[in-house]
């Protein structure tokens, strides 16, 4: 077995070790923990490159596994292991590379936070867990790392836990993803009970290999559904939770309460992609047999793509727009997996990781430069103050919009749309995707014009709400930027923050060319069949280019022609259609729907019961009581003079009996114990009597 395959575990182990060491370090060891974390990531990146080179050398579909026994229970061994195949190799390189850049960026962004070491501890732990997810060759190992990833996500979203909104967002993220994880756990248990192994690949005996897949497809459950479909759907539910697909997407926008590098690393580039990766990993299981679970994946992805893109149209928080954009792009990836297979979805995952990390870090740079202002209405004109950020952000925007030919986003998105076009089941996902692309181009253009063009609106009009927020954040802001004495002028960020931006921007452009229809190296590497450069493809490219140009043109028409002067000005879209805009601004009221439906139902039910109790039953009781009172008045005369004596005596007897009985319930523990003791004696006697030889 080659050296790199044998030692693949080092890649996740190094960041985890770094996390353990910086957890022990005292708080002021900032340089120590940062260099530990970055060093481990760089070594991890180099190792990943080795692994990647090895995987390339193996050729397409080459796969090497290394399994070992973990522990025995009963007479079965639980096995864990890791796998090196093209999927793993690609993900490893992406995660370590983007991770390294974001770690570097964080040293600048978090420089003044007093919990710097804790931040890097969590980041390293996250990186280790994520890499563990990537290399896992067992659903169990994947699940363990998956939960660790969820835990670190919780810790990092709630990193500024003294902010109530951050604490709430952290809890929301944790609980929402937990819903999906329960399904994933169920799927895992089911898979284990059906196939007897959780290893993905084990020289023909793994659960993703032909023997067990055939068995899984052959079994059907009560609804006439193949077992493989059921398991696939349960696993997909886990991916839905982690990747923020409808209807479990609600946590992702709130997760933007965390520090921006966290948003870039976890909630854009890597963790949320873990769901997509999971589906890609179990793709053989999903596609086995009828492939019904893939249809579900497609539909959920397509709906998420358009749904989140439309919400993003009306948001004003710079990170929130990007968050919804992430949700929408994740939808595209899922759709790509559903309609076109692993290569299509993964290509978009990789390109998206680069340009979305770029956008988030650019947004972080903007926020940093504007002294923790996140509302795009109160920015404007930053082009002049932050040239590097602007240039890189523009590249990221073009990539996300899918600007034709030069940027990576165009190629990967086009791939998905092309696959959707050829999907035999339905054309609706394709059209949803096209409209989603239009929306994407529009909202990104809107954001760029708001933030970078026109004149600066920073600190011009402060509403009470924003003052409120400043007060809320006062504790954080003051600690974070003690050096900013004059908060009037936006400024460019330090080199440690801009350098990663430049690197990512270059990657966002170049990366697309490894997977063009003309030279589909990436797709071949992941083992997909490639059609080549047909007329269809050209037609589709032209169509999608036109769509992107329409979207960007509309964006310019609304926002670029006449830049906003005052931050209180209504959005042009709001002037046009206030009803729809408000619907979108409030995210289709999903949070409110959950509030109104699940939570409100409980409250309503309680109130209904209360009402029923008060009016119906109470009324009945009252009626009866009046009736009884009437009778009793009549009776009284009879009683007092006729049966008085005997009745009184009877009552006394009953009450005395009650008093005796209530003595059993005198709250003294020993009395209860005594009764238990007698019970024990009786039970033992019964058993002896029952077991005697007859």
């Amino acid at each position, binding site marked *: 077995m080659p050296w790199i395959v044998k030692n693949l575990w080092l890649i996740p182990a190094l960041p985890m070790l770094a996390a353990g060491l910086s957890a022990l370090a005292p708080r002021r060891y900032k340089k120590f923990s940062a260099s530990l974390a970055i060093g481990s990531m760089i070594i991890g990146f180099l190792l990943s490159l080795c692994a990647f080179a090895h995987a390339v050398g193996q050729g397409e579909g080459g796969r090497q596994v290394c399994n070992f026994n973990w522990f025995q229970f009963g007479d079965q061994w639980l096995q864990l292991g890791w796998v090196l195949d093209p999927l793993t190799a690609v993900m490893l390189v992406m995660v370590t590379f983007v991770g390294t850049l974001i770690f570097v960026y964080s040293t600048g962004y978090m420089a003044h936070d007093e919990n710097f070491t804790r931040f890097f501890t969590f980041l390293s732990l996250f990186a280790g867990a994520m890499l563990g997810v990537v290399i896992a060759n067992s659903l169990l190992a994947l699940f363990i790392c998956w939960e660790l990833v969820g835990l670190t996500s919780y810790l990092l979203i709630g990193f500024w836990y003294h902010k109530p909104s951050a604490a709430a967002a952290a809890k929301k993220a944790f609980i929402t993803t937990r819903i999906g994880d329960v399904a994933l756990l169920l799927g895992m248990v089911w898979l284990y009970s059906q196939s007897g192994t959780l290893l993905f690949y084990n020289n023909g005996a793994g659960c993703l290999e032909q023997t067990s897949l055939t068995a899984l497809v052959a079994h059907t459950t009560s609804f006439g559904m193949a077992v493989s479909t059921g398991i696939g759907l349960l696993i997909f539910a886990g991916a839905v939770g982690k990747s923020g697909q409808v209807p479990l997407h609600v946590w992702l926008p709130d997760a933007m309460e965390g520090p921006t590098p966290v948003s870039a690393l976890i909630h854009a580039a890597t963790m949320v992609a873990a769901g997509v990766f999971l589906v890609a990993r179990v793709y053989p299981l999903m596609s086995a047999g009828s492939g019904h679970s893939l249809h579900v994946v497609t539909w959920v992805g397509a709906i998420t793509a358009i749904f989140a893109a439309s919400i993003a149209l009306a948001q004003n928080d710079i990170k929130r727009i990007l968050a919804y954009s992430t949700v929408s792009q994740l939808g595209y990836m899922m759709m790509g997996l559903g309609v076109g297979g692993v290569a299509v979805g993964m290509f978009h995952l990789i390109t998206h990781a680069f340009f979305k990390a770029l956008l988030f870090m650019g947004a972080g740079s903007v926020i940093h430069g504007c002294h923790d202002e996140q509302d795009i209405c109160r920015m404007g004109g930053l082009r002049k103050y932050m040239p590097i950020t602007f240039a890189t952000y523009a590249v990221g925007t073009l990539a996300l919009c899918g600007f034709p030919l030069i940027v990576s986003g165009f190629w990967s998105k086009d791939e998905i749309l092309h696959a959707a076009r050829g999907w035999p089941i339905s054309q609706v996902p394709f059209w949803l995707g096209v409209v989603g692309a239009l929306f994407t181009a529009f909202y990104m253009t809107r954001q760029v014009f708001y933030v970078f063009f026109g004149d600066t609106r920073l600190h011009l009009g402060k509403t009470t709400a924003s003052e409120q927020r400043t007060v809320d954040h006062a504790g954080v802001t003051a600690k974070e930027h003690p050096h900013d004495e004059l908060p009037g002028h936006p400024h460019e960020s330090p080199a440690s923050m801009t350098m990663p931006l430049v690197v990512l921007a270059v990657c966002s452009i170049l990366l697309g060319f490894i997977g063009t229809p003309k030279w589909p190296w990436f797709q071949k590497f992941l083992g997909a069949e490639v059609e080549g450069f047909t007329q269809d493809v050209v037609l589709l490219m032209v169509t999608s280019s036109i769509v992107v140009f329409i979207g960007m043109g509309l964006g310019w028409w609304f926002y670029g022609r006449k830049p906003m002067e005052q931050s209180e000005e209504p959005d042009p879209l709001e002037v046009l259609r206030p009803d729809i805009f408000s619907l979108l601004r409030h995210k289709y009221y999903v949070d409110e729907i959950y509030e109104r439906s699940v939570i409100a139902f409980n409250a309503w039910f309680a109130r209904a019961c209360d009402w029923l109790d008060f009016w119906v039953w109470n009324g009945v009781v009252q009626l009866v009581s009046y009736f009884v009172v009437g009778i009793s008045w009549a009776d009284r005369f009879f009683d007092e003079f006729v049966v008085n004596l005997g009745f009184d005596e009877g009552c006394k007897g009953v009450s005395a009996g009650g008093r005796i009985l*209530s003595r059993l*319930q*005198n*709250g*003294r*523990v*020993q009395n209860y*114990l*005594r009764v238990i*003791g007698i019970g024990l004696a009786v039970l033992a006697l019964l058993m002896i009597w029952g077991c005697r030889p007859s």
Partner: protein
Amino acid sequence: MSPLAGYLILSAFLFAIGLAGALTRRNAIIVLIGIELMLNAANLNFIAFWRFSEHPEALTGILFVIFSIGVAAAEAAVGLALIIAIYRHYKTTNVDEMNSLKG
């Protein structure tokens, strides 16, 4: 009398002594001690049956007792913590006076 019977009788006596203490004493700590004695009597039974079983190599009796000791340690810790908490509130460890849960 076979050796097994001796151990079983010893265990039964310890159990009864613990039970009697738990049922008659006023102080909650002694009640807890009585319960510990009862637990130990049960452990003795496990070991005795393991020793005189036909397949002692299965080790089940020993392992059960090891787990039982672990559980008993946890029980003692939590039980005594409860007694201390109760003492702090009611200034008593008398089980006769701890009857605010009566019906």
